[in-house]
């Protein structure tokens, strides 16, 4: 589903970051581990088409994303990639379910309230659907973020430090949910983290140095 080839990135005046090649098929999970400053976020942004590749290529579902730019790239990202961040931001003026439906509409899909609600129910936050984002706890926010990332059944789900802000119980739960939902949606899941608690829980690991 996703594969990288000779991916390198150079920040002006910074060290040159070289990333190992890897592949991740649909329903697979890869854990990318590394300490701060080794380029985890850079890699994630390269994979998500948030950062333009300088060298090497990223292929998602048969599309070389460095051939896309501007609005096409934004569209592609919206349709094919779901991203969960460590600290998730939402459109605070909208309700929980509206934030999920926003992801549908921005990806160019039809907004489907029932589908969004069903997903929220599956994530056990259906009762918060019409609440404001500010009324949610950290753990609940993370679930909404997961719902938002998978509502369009993307080819790839990227999770950037999805558990670092959570306690052990929530950490396990969120990881489980991510894996479950990614499988159900048929997406490839890549988790980028320095959270060593996840280390033994996922088989397929890439360690950045």
């Amino acid at each position: 589903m996703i594969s990288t080839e000779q991916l390198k990135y150079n920040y002006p005046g910074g060290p040159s970051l070289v990333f190992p090649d890897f592949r991740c098929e649909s329903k697979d999970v890869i854990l990318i581990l590394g300490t701060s400053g080794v380029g985890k976020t850079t890699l994630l942004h390269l994979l998500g088409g948030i950062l333009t590749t300088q060298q090497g290529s990223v292929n998602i579902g048969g599309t070389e994303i460095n051939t896309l730019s501007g609005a096409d790239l934004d569209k592609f990202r919206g349709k094919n990639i779901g991203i969960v961040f460590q600290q998730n931001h939402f459109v605070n003026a909208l309700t929980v379910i509206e934030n999920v439906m926003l992801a549908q509409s921005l990806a160019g899909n039809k907004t489907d309230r029932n589908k969004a609600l069903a997903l929220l129910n599956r994530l056990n936050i259906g009762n918060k659907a019409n609440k404001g984002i500010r009324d949610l706890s950290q753990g609940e926010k993370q679930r909404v973020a997961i719902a938002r990332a998978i509502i369009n059944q993307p080819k790839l789900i990227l999770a950037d430090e999805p558990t670092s802000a959570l306690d052990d119980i929530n950490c396990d739960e969120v990881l489980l949910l991510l894996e479950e939902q990614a499988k159900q949606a048929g997406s490839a899941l890549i988790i980028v983290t320095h959270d060593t608690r996840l280390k033994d829980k996922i088989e397929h690991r890439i360690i950045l140095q």
Partner: protein
Amino acid sequence: MNIVQIAWRNIISNPLNLLMSIILFGLGVGLISFLMLFNTQLKDKFDKNLAEIDLVVGAKGSPLQMILCNMYHIDNPTGNISIKNAAPLLNDAHPLIKKSIPLSLGDNFKTYRIVGTNHDIVDLYKGKLKEGTLWKNDFEVTIGKTVADATGLGLGDKFVSAHGFVEDDMAHDEHSFTVKGILDASGSVMDQLIFTNTETIWLVHEHNEKTDTKDINPAESISQHVKNESHQHDNSNKDLLHHTDQEITSVLIQYKNKTNFQALNFGRNINENTEMQAASPAIEINRLYSMMGVGTDALRILAILIAVVSALSIFISLFKSMRERKYELALLRVMGAGMLKVFALIIIEGLILAGIGFVIGSLMSHIGMEVIAKYLKADFRYSFTGWSWIREEWFILIVSLLLGFIASFIPAFQAAKTDINKTLSER
């Protein structure tokens, strides 16, 4: 969830910002639109009442006051002129004058002025009879539409006048007027006047002076005098010339040819060589405009200043909220919104703010106009209204939206070109 909805939700999720932006913007728009409304209606009133009168001749004093009194019926008369002095002006054979209309003021009924004059005044203001007839005999009146509406007077009704121009209880109760006709609404000052013949005004005042001075010599009585005259009153200027010892307030004059060289000097000759004063309505009213102009200009500058400050406040509030929503906006990009969409989102927010501000400002100006109209009606009997729309308001709407666009352009541009990689990497 389209971007207009998101923009709207963003705006109402920050009610304090919303309030400040639209109140400021509304104030600026309201003031400008009010000034336009007021000026338009005022000019309209003044212009309608110019009625192609070229010259007003009355007693010496302030020319502007004379114009305001005799053409607009706002101010008090500068005094009276004697028929003897005015005789040349009232002569039908005068080579320069097409029409001359004598006016005699002095009484009112419920603050509506009673004007002694001839029938030419109705043509001058292009008035039409709605019902009844024009005044003919002494103490017969024809009333304007506003008078009829406001006082409830109808055909055949009788009323007594009050002296001067304010309502008082010292009514001339010895004489009662009879309503013979009602004029159609003309939109001019005529609507609020009560017309009668000149002799009636004399009769009322002769009687009044007599009782005031306790002079009871019947030989001096004008009523007597008038009755003793052998001729019939026919409301003509010729008729007035028989009473050279009497006075009138003014004469409204229309020239045969406005550009005639002699006509141009006519007013000056009167001012230099007679005890009367002549003034051109157009010149005096322009003088009044330019005097008011200083005030309205100052207000307009203030209004523009407020509008600019309000645009600045929209700019600041959008810029601030754009900063605060940096992640949100980056997120929209991550979720598939193109730069153009993010740009449009902020622009739409600016336009909505300006739009609401315009609506509120317009409402304020029209309501304000309506409130002021009530006062003006009470003080001057001029009718203004807050419920008329002028074409310039479209112009204000366009400028408002333009201001909203300009105010939101920089924040929108900034938001659109924000580096989402950088924004999302910041922790």
